[in-house]
């Protein structure tokens, strides 16, 4: 139900931002939660870095970061998501190939066990036109930071 709502919201946002570059801003998370939905990542020939700050997390739990990626280009993209470790890993996404205007949900999981204090982790989405060499690959970084309390 929640996913459906996110998808519908994203589609509306997609039409609003169809000709814009990456739009991602912190939406002001203050309360500890198990799942945090980040702003949609619009891919439009960009390598912009996003920062999402100010998260407060309970120690020892697992935290999920999820966001929608949307291909705003007029050709299919080969995407791959990765992480910079430190407890943050890919949980799931289903499609490597994203057709024009297509959406995909990417979910990361952050294991906080054994960690405390401030944290800053990086999620990465690399993309290239489908069928082209990796030399044409571009990388978008999404940083999430906050405190494990």
């Amino acid at each position, binding site marked *: 139900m929640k996913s459906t709502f996110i998808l519908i919201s994203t589609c509306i946002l997609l039409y609003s931002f169809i000709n814009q570059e990456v739009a991602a801003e912190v939406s002001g998370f203050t309360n500890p939660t198990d799942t945090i939905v980040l702003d949609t990542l619009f891919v439009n020939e960009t390598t912009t870095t996003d920062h999402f700050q100010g998260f407060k997390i309970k120690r020892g739990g697992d935290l999920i970061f999820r966001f929608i990626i949307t291909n705003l280009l007029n050709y299919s993209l080969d995407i791959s998501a990765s992480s910079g*470790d*430190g407890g943050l890993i890919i949980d799931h996404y289903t499609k490597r190939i994203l057709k024009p205007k297509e959406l995909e949900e990417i979910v990361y999981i952050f294991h906080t066990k054994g960690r405390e*204090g401030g944290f800053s982790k*990086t999620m990465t989405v690399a993309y290239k036109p489908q069928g082209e060499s990796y030399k044409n690959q571009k990388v978008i970084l999404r940083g999430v930071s906050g405190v494990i309390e």
Partner: protein
Amino acid sequence: MLAVIKPKAMQEPNIITKVILTQPQSFIEANLPRLCYLVTGVNPIDNKSVSVSLVDNGGFQFTKLSDENSFNYSNAGIKDKNDFLKKLDEYFNKTNQAITDAFANQKIKTQFFPRAYMKPISASPNYNSKGAVKAVVSWTAVYKIEIPAYENPITRRTEYANLINGGIEITLSAGGKILSFKYNLLPVSSQKSAALYKVVADESAVPQLVYLLNKNTNTVAPFYLSATETAYIPASRESIPPDEEPGEAFKNPMGFDKDRIVVWLMNPDVKKRKLKIFDFFAPRKKDSDNNLPAGAKLIRLEPASETDENTPCVYWWEGSYHQKDFPERSLGKNNNIITELSGQVLQNDVEHLLSRISSYEKKQDEYDKVIKSIRDFSKKLLTKEQIDNGLIKLNSSLQLNKNDKPATILTWQKVLSDVYNPKVNETTNFFDEVLILPLSYDWFMEDKNSITPTLSTYYEETWQGDPLLNRFVGDSGEVVLDENDLIKVKSELLNLRSFVLKTAAKNSPEAAWLQNLTKESLNRIKLIVFVHSATWHYRTEKYAESAALENSFGVFKLSPVLNLLIHEFTGHSNFLFFATGTKPDGTPSDRHIDVKDTEATWNKVSKSGLGSLKQNEDFIDHLYQSHRALGSIALAVIISKISNL
């Protein structure tokens, strides 16, 4: 099973072996600056251009951090390998004499370089990794310690045995300056004879004799290396094993155990458990051709029941996968099994990996060279002596020295960049932009319990309190590549460079390393790697969180920390960028392999056989607890050290 009979119980005359007595490690410790000066010509006191530290097993190491003040023991340059070895021979003579003279008034009888036992196992040039012209920049030699252990009663020939946890590595610049020196040994003070214990064995091959350096007993003494056990068996009264991990009791559990998925065959004849006295005069029985040799890597699947003595295993042998039952008791937990067939086992593991990485071919020129080096090496069948020498060389060159992490990291980064250093652009290669931090949580916390805890307090206030800097605690490692994060970390490293000189850690290798950082040198860095606190202590761990570390090939395996670094480099960079993955449910992943991934794959194969994986190499990665692309870099590093023995 291997047991020994002590001399009193023996009927035949004793076979005499040799035990070497050494100076204690405290001798090295007490005289470290002086010994360093005598050996390298460099005074290490307050010298930030060098790093000098003790080695855990015994001995010390010296590493030059910058180009200045290196000891030039010879005015002439090095012409070739023979010239290099000749110069080293002269150097050993002179240094032995200098050390004898220096300690003459203390009446300490010591032979620093035991030349009678030292045997070069490699001497090769090192080339510059940049520029169009391939030029020799330095030469490295590794010496093993080979000891005449006993006279064989049949052949009347002297049988030699290697010291396997020690050796000497020395690197000279092309101009003859000492760049690094690893003395994983203790100076010899004397030698004595001892009776060689007779063996009771159910093994078909002669148990191998090896020597071990024990810094607690100041001895280099002989041990039997059994193909059926992972422990060292004392071979004389003086043979006291160095500290080891205790062995585990036999069991055949049903469920998933991450530490018992990849296992190694200890002895194919273990079913025939008939004890016999090992007799030097008895004819030797060779392994049957039908048997898999000891040391072969197996994937242990779920047994039919807890009472079943056999366990189904899958394995790769001679070009394809097989499934067969093996006695549970024959499945060992480590790959340190050396037999006459170890070369064959290594070759099989190399061929297996080669078959798994074929899909990565022609994706990147630099990686194609890695594949070529593995393919070339796969055609070689190493002898047992080459395997023995390779182990010594690998341990001498690439072991983690926890007392000198900067020197260790420097060595690792050099060897990694030599085997795989992809271009970022026309003028820059990957490792030009990489900084691996040799700093650790333990180092920051060293003065925690002192009266004036300055460094630990600084760490807690500065590093631990800042989200961008708090990256030293955990069970794996992490990379920083975001521009803002990089600026913050670099700035704090420069602050720490100044601050550390006001603390008790000012003479540590880490402090010396920090002094060599400059704003300019940091400017080019685009990826900083942190190693977490627990990771530095890993020994046999299969995972560092979701990084699989089981990259072994025959008896060879790199430090878990080095395997983790190879994993970390792939965090969204030019390093193995094509190496993505697939989760057990078929969805995309990156190069991570979680324990859960291995468990899901293992359950599937235990239930339905290897065919259920449909030859998907990502699933094979999960099962073998090793991402094949990362494993290939680990193998290329190993090959670079053992291919020219």
